[in-house]
């Protein structure tokens, strides 16, 4: 590798920072939790996951953590994603295809507006148990 100049080092740091920030949970206030049960994966949860990551990358959002969980019990509306933004109600979205994932990032997380038509209630507490 060639020797770095000051400008190279700054650029390298900025590039790598975006990568390593994805690993970190500290200081991340917004969370997207994607249901990755068999039903979710079959319905396209992986594509939705990618779309979330891409859009967050494109918008350079640094305080969003994208994590996964098992089946959330809403198998009829998979893929599902729970979105937790401070100061907003915790929302579970259903039918989250790639385009909806993009909209969730732009509308719910950036503009703080719910993406209507895709909001589904949490299952009853006894089912969650």
């Amino acid at each position: 590798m060639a020797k770095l100049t000051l400008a190279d080092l700054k650029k390298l740091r900025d590039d790598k920072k975006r990568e390593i920030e994805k690993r970190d949970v500290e200081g991340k206030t917004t969370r997207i939790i994607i249901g990755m049960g068999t039903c979710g994966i079959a319905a396209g949860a992986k594509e939705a996951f990618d779309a979330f990551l891409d859009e967050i990358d494109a918008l350079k959002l640094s305080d969003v953590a994208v994590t996964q969980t098992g089946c959330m019990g809403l198998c009829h509306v998979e893929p599902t994603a729970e979105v937790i933004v401070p100061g907003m109600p915790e929302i579970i979205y259903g039918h989250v295809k790639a385009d909806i994932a993009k909209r969730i990032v732009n509308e719910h997380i950036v503009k703080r507006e719910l993406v209507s038509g895709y909001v589904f209630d949490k299952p009853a507490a006894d089912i969650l148990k």
Partner: protein
Amino acid sequence: MKLKNYILVCGGTGCESSKADDIYRSFMKELKDQKVDGEAQVIKTGCFGFCEKGPIVKVLPDDSFYVHVKAEDAKEIVAEHIIKGRQVSRLLYKKSDEKIHTKIEDIDFYQKQVRVVLRNCGFIDPENINEYIARDGYLALEKALFEMKPDDVIKELEISGLRGRGGAGFPTWRKWSFSKGVPGDQKFIVCNADEGDPGAYMDRSTLEGDPHSVLEAMTIAGHTVGANRGFIYIRAEYPLAIHRLEIAIGQAKENGLLGDDILGSGFNFDIEIRLGAGAFVCGEETALLASIEGKRGMPVPRPPFPAVKGLWGKPTVINNVETWANIPVIIMKGGAWFAKIGTEKSKGTKVFALTGKIKNSGLIEVPMGITLREIIYEIGGGVPNGKKFKAVQTGGPSGGVITADYLDTPIDFDNLAKLGSIMGSGGMIVMDEDDCMVDVTKFYLEFTVDESCGKCSPCRVGGRQLYNHLEKITNGEGTEEDIRKMRLIGKAMQKASLCALGQTAPNPVISTLQYFESEYMAHIKERRCPAGKCKKMLRYSIVPEKCKGCGLCAKKCPAGCIKGEIKKPYVIDSVACVKCGACEEACKFKAVVKN
């Protein structure tokens, strides 16, 4: 699919020795076999700190903390967690109450910790310079080279209040400014990584987990005081730390962060590694410098201090690993930021290696001013097996003990000194009711006698004499005269020894005599070791009222010294007894007692 998970495998020496490397390879294989190698990245990091639970695997950003992981568990973690998003609950950290902790932030071991020195340890891959750079690595160097004057750097250190973490707590900025003030064509920067206290591994873990932080700090120091060469003196018993340091130095050189014309600034700086052969005295700075010069590691009287006249007679800034690791953060965030952490006279944090009779042994970093109670009971989880806390030893062979009465003392350099112990490099050994204080003291004296370089007689002869008195007492042959003599010898050693090794060697004796004189007296007057540790004084006997005459003890006795008739009380022949304790273990009726 895109990368969504990061599997962090602890690669500290502790976990490595529990086959962390197999775990790492097993994850790589499973990701491939289960066709998800694009979805998760496996990273081997430095020590996570929670060594008691090792080997540990973290899955991020899901914040999952898997403990006591085996290589064969990788299959299940990949199939369940990585593919299906379900945490493997049987491997998640549980406290004794069996409550499963699904998040790292909930784990009490980490709650009170503040990570400055260990900021990257257990998060980045120490063998990849890019990961360090991504965490604002070499940003402080940029600032020091291009935005600050050397005096500004020293000023920042002064504001921060950083004191040397090697044990003595000398203000770091003063060392630097002494060296800077001495005119000279050649100056040196040295990192003291000759960590030698029994049970201490702070420096090793820092170097294993974040070697670049030390390299960056030394380069900053070089620029500040006008030095072009640096040495890291590290003991040869730390092969992993040496290996990672070598990689880090190589990568820094390749990237132009070490070598000639660093980042185009015109400043040249190089770092070399020097291996110590494991002599404890080489942790003393003048002995260390002698050893780098290729001489026998023996201390010389100070002054002149190394900052003025050090390596090959040239001004030398020598700091300990932990001190160095603090410096990039101070330059980056400012001295005032650092000074907000800690107490009035001891700023920042301190890394401790918490070991001994403690539930959560491991490596911790806490703000100065935290109490021992918080460390032992909240972070450490208390003493295991329902035993009673007796004392905590800080400062290793140069330190002393702190008893239960002083658990609420805020820990800093000055308070520990007031209690007759020292901060030391950060070893913290917890002792319970089964530990004999005389025996522990003898252990430390044995260590210092062994490690004395022999140059000055107070240390060479005094240490041996102290040890002899202690041995006499633990053999049950002590008198009060021994105590009086130990006090005298201790004082003489403190005053007359050449270096800190001899000056502090009597500290364990003086400290235990202060807090546990009654225990010494029990050995001397009653010929009894209250903790039952000193074997020479141990007497096993059978309580006739409790003995059912089953004969099990006689069967287990390797010396054949237990006699009796079935269904009648048995008797131990104490002359022939080898004090192995097998009878006590064998007896189901608790009829065998010590002393």
